[in-house]
């Protein structure tokens, strides 16, 4: 495998291997000396045209902990702001002989466009509303660690499905691994139903029905930056019908866990006490596994 652009590029076996290695890296990361030499001498460029906190940090740490030289370029400081096209930026970076370019871009398909023009490995760190494969992998390993398996689990993804690359990557990965996926969204934030059912996903617009007896509830943020026009009346109405609170969580299985890719909007899609409940929330485990999974991916591509 040269690039990681979509979860569709990975077989179930490759996914299992990445998840297993991620746990190894997690164990190493818990030691005071976190340095490994797997990627010594390699160069990794983070090209984040769309901004990010946790993804960019975790890729930087992942590269450094494996011994690579890491350079991070954010949109504000890059020539893209000076009018350079994405392809010209890609060719320029390529001429510097990096081994990996990690790309985030606000346009769906932009990472693939760039990948076609460079010689090194390209990792999709999120392209528009399309895919976010490393997020899906870190979610998968977090779920597997919490539940001991993926196969057969009932997993509800709830929120702004329409604009979510996290949802699209997770749907592909989780169904591929034998989990049963439901999506829950207000009708204005629901993608085409035929597309969803073709992916083997059950569709709910009523959250109370959607979370009934699930093992995992994955909450998503409202992607306001991708919304043009009025999809919803107000944050308070959204919270009333689609926010995760104790009453709705009680409808899930007793040992159901709550996830969120972050950044969370407390009181909009999730109640603070649930986000902070260490018995139900595995949001910080997701962050921990974010670094470890990205190490496993770099190792795999390298």
């Amino acid at each position, binding site marked *: 495998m040269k690039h990681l652009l979509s979860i569709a590029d990975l077989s179930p076996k490759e996914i299992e291997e990445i998840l297993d290695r991620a746990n190894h890296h997690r164990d190493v990361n818990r030691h005071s000396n976190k340095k490994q030499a797997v990627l010594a001498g390699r160069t990794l460029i983070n090209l984040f045209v769309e901004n990010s906190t946790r993804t960019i940090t975790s890729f930087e740490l992942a590269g450094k902990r494996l011994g690579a030289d890491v350079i991070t370029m954010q949109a504000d400081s890059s020539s893209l702001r000076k009018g350079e096209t994405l392809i010209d930026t890609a060719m320029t970076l390529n001429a510097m002989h990096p081994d990996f370019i990690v790309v985030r871009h606000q346009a769906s398909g932009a990472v693939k466009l760039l990948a076609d023009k460079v010689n090194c490995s390209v990792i999709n760190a999120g392209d528009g509303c399309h895919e976010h494969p490393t997020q899906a992998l870190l979610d998968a390993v977090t779920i597997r660690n919490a539940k001991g398996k993926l196969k057969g689990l009932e997993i509800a993804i709830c929120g702004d499905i329409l604009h979510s690359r996290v949802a699209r990557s997770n749907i592909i990965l989780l169904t591929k691994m034998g989990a049963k996926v439901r999506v829950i969204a*207000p*009708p*204005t934030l629901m993608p*085409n*139903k035929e597309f969803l059912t073709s992916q083997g996903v059950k569709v709910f*617009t*009523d959250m109370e029905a959607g979370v009934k007896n699930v093992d995992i509830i994955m909450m998503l943020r409202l992607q306001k930056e991708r919304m043009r*026009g*009025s*999809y*919803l*009346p*107000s944050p*308070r*109405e959204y919270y*009333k*019908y689609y926010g995760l609170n104790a009453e709705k969580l009680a409808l899930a299985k007793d040992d159901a866990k709550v996830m969120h890719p972050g950044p969370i909007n407390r009181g909009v899609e999730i109640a603070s006490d649930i986000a902070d409940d260490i018995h139900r929330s595995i949001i910080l485990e997701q962050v921990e596994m974010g670094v470890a999974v990205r190490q496993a991916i770099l190792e795999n591509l390298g």
Partner: protein
Amino acid sequence: MSVFLAEPGLKKGKGKKLLKNARIFDPESGYDQIGNLLIDGDKITDFGKIEASDAEIIDCEGKLLTPGLIDIQVHAREPGFEKKENLESVSRSAAAGGVTGIAVMPNTQPVTDNVATVEFIQRRAIKKSIVNVHIYASITKNMEGKELSEIGMLKEAGVVGFTDDGLPLANPFVMRNALTYATEFDALIAQHAEDLQLSNGGCINEGIVSSRLGVPGIPNASEAVMVERDLQLLRLVQNQTGKGRYHVLHVSTKEALDAIRRAKAEGLNVTCEAAPHHFTLTEEAVGDYKTFAKVNPPLRDEESRKAIYDGICDGTIDAIATDHAPHDEESKRLPLADAAFGIVGLETMLPLALALYHNGDIDLRALLAKMTYQPANIIGVAAGRIKKGAKADLTLIDLDKKWKIKPENFHSKSKNSPFEDFPVQGRAIKTFVGGRLVYSV
């Protein structure tokens, strides 16, 4: 002629009343028998060949006893424009017209776009109204056509439908999202179908009369393009969600009605209503700058008047609603182009509608259906039926009485009607709301 109107406030009837010797008529079931009907408190407990020794007796003298009429488009003007009308005066006007339930429109001040205003209207109705008040809220905040109102919370608060009223929702993306979002709450999206840009400040129908008077006209296409567009959006929403509800307020043109007829045949979930003035009058009523005949949508030409009339008779039109739009004299005593749009209608709905029955063009059951259970179904309220256990909202009608409309006798605060001295046949003579006699003549 002595008129009784109940004291303000929604109160339940007390004790038992036996409405004797009535022609009891229920449009939904088709029940049509001379008999007695017993009310206990606010409910109908029994009817038919029954007697009750301990009840107050009201002799109906063989007159027609129907479910209370329902008018699903009324501008009550409260809060904000109480000079023109308020919940007390509009309810007296309704009761005098035999109307026991009204749906009030959201073009109030402030706009009815939030739960607090809805609760205000509900409280005022309990205190001041003598008929049932159902509430429309706006689709978008402040009827600006931009951001959706809190449709879910408003529906939970008791709102029966959503419309941006005289500021039709122009942005098709917002309309699509409104129709889509509303599916989750089974909320009704209603539209005053008009492309305001095409109307371009027109004040009466575009045609011979507007040309003669030299005033800007509103073409039929103004209504038809909006209905056609919304039906395209409804199809999109129904295909995607399997649900969707769309209601055309006061349809006035042949073209729009034809579009609705086709959409119904296709299976789209669309309903429509028409106002008595649109199937009774044409643009000729504007005559020599008569502002009392200025209404939006405007009185159309004879072809459209006939089409609306026929649409009532053939069933394409689901409900008769008045678009009761009271205006003080100052708003009407102006040049035609500057005068306010609107006609008061609550006290003339029944007699104007009965003309279709007296003409022999529609049977009584089908006609009354459009003023009872069919409008109730559109706004999703359990009313408009005579059955055991139902709320005793009833109208006693003298079908044959010939009389002339006298706006000066209206109980509405406003008298803006083009029907002065218009000859009609039939009228409400008693109105019961929740078992309580609220109007009698």
